């Protein structure tokens, strides 16, 4: 069966008792792409991945992974995918090297070849030094890297990554992101579940936003942002007494100004980044001292808010010191 879709799911359903954890999910993931499944905790991401990875049998709907039916041809699916689960899928009582050798043997490498493959992956993922330590003593970031390395003992056509950076420090998170980018560049299709908006934004070619078991929006990060429209300019002044004056200028440049609870802060919608920047320049020309401003690209969080009426996480802002 030839199709350029790596994953094709229609009306997938999984219920746990009364709870419809996954409630009619459709997905179409092109081969070679990184596809983000974005949603808050409990949205049904892991349950969806587990059905696609043949760990759970769907209660309704159907799914094909690389052309194979996940129920009827589960074994064929298992032959071409790898899973890096939300719980670290490494064996805590084994060393990193032993974990990889074990998987090497389970994929069909014989003694020496399994060891060589393990060492090669340990090197590529920067785990040489930790190779002979028990993985229960690994840091979160090391464990994640080992986990991903374990998924690559043989190169999968499709990799499931379930919240690969949850709980990681920024440096480890960036390492994982680099790995995902390298995999994509090498042609591996990746289904990435995440609750971090910036993660999907950074990595994914396409995103499905899911909430309470349903896909509520779909598109490229750009399309999703465009659907919300305006960016927000937030300004904090050095001197609160200048706020009325600043309000006047911003209202003239951009439109209705919102006065924040903080007496030195105000915010205003901006149709695009250029206009926002001009408004800031206008403030300083008028002699108003700006302590800080942020020109929020409409974030995926705002997308989420617009789509669901509730936020997925607290918005992260990049403060630009004035």
């Amino acid at each position, binding site marked *: 069966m030839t199709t350029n879709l790596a994953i094709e799911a229609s009306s997938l359903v999984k219920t746990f008792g009364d709870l419809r954890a996954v409630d009619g999910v459709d997905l179409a993931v092109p081969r070679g792409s990184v596809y983000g499944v974005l949603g808050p905790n409990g949205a049904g991401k892991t349950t969806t991945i*587990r059905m696609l*990875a*043949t*760990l*759970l*049998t769907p209660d309704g709907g159907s799914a094909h992974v690389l052309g194979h039916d996940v129920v009827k041809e589960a*074994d064929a699916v*298992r*032959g071409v*995918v*790898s*899973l890096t*689960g*939300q*719980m*670290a*899928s*490494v*064996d*805590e*009582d*084994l*060393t990193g090297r*032993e974990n990889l050798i*074990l*998987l090497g*043997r*389970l*994929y*069909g*490498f*014989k003694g020496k*070849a399994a060891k060589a*493959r393990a060492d*090669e*992956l340990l*090197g*590529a*993922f*920067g785990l040489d030094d930790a190779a002979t330590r*028990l993985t229960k003593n690994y840091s979160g970031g090391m464990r994640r890297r080992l986990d991903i390395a*374990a*998924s*690559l003992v*043989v*190169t999968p056509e499709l990799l499931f990554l379930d919240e690969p950076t949850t709980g990681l420090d920024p440096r480890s998170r960036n*390492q994982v992101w*680099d*790995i995902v*980018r*390298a*995999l994509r*560049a*090498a042609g*591996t299709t990746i289904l990435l579940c995440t609750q971090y908006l910036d993660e999907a934004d950074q990595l994914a070619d396409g995103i499905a936003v899911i909430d309470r078991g349903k896909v509520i929006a779909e598109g490229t990060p750009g399309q999703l942002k465009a659907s919300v429209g305006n960016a927000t300019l937030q300004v904090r002044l050095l001197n609160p007494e200048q706020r009325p004056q600043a309000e006047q200028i911003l209202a003239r440049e951009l439109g209705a100004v919102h006065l924040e609870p903080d007496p030195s802060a105000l915010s205003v919608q901006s149709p695009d980044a250029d206009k926002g920047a001009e408004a800031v320049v206008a403030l300083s020309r008028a002699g108003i001292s700006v302590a800080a401003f942020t020109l929020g690209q409409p974030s995926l969080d705002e997308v989420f808010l617009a789509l669901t009426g509730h936020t997925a996480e607290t918005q992260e802002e990049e403060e630009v010191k004035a």
Partner: protein
Amino acid sequence: MSTDDIAIRNALSSVPRPPRPGAFNAAMAFGWRGMLKIKHVPEQLLDVTITPVMFLLMFTYLFGGAIAGSTGEYLDYVLPGLLVMSVVFTTVYSGVSLNTDLTKGAVDRFRTLPIWRPAPLVGALLGDAVRYVIAGTVIMTLGVILGFRPGSWPGMFAALALTVVFSFGVSWLFTTLGLLLRSPSAVMNAGFMFIFPLTFLSNAFVEPETLPSVLEAFVNVNPISIMTDAARGLMAGDAVGSDVAISLAVAAGLTAVFMPLTSHLYRTRG
């Protein structure tokens, strides 16, 4: 592109995919995993060594005089029974450790591998068989130190081998239980609730003739009794062929029924 990137891309494309491993190799890989766990967490061997030692000392010195009139005579009677009991008790831990395993993410990965379905279970039990051998060896060694003399030394090792094979069969019961129940302690409790009466209502510790007739009838058909008879016979050097055959048949029967069941549950457990 960073050097990491290049290393990862090289690692991705470096080797062709080998053919899938056969059933035997896959199971052996999991058996190796079991060995590594024993190596890294040797404490887990305490369970399987301390309990048998306690039982042996307790039965010999505490009950021996009362049951058989002398500790030496009772040791001769009870050692084969204790061998069977100790090793069969150890099988409960196979269910417990499988259940513990299920709470870890590693099992998810194993379940998405294209391998012979029962391989993780067969391999784990092969690893456990090493524990059975250890438990049995501890009992036999201590028995000999305390004065037990088998009629046949090779028979004694044959008895250990038969007990391990028998227990391999029994352990499928507990791996099934390990997949049906939610927590390791539930498996432990249910397992012992089942195996304790079964072991004590056998001829391992008392002559069946001394029991009320209803009990005696049960004791005589209890597979643990038959296994114990086989072990006694092998150690004495006058084994009854049918006892050995029935013990093997029980192991084969339990494996035939409960291995596929366990395997199915392992694959389908959410």
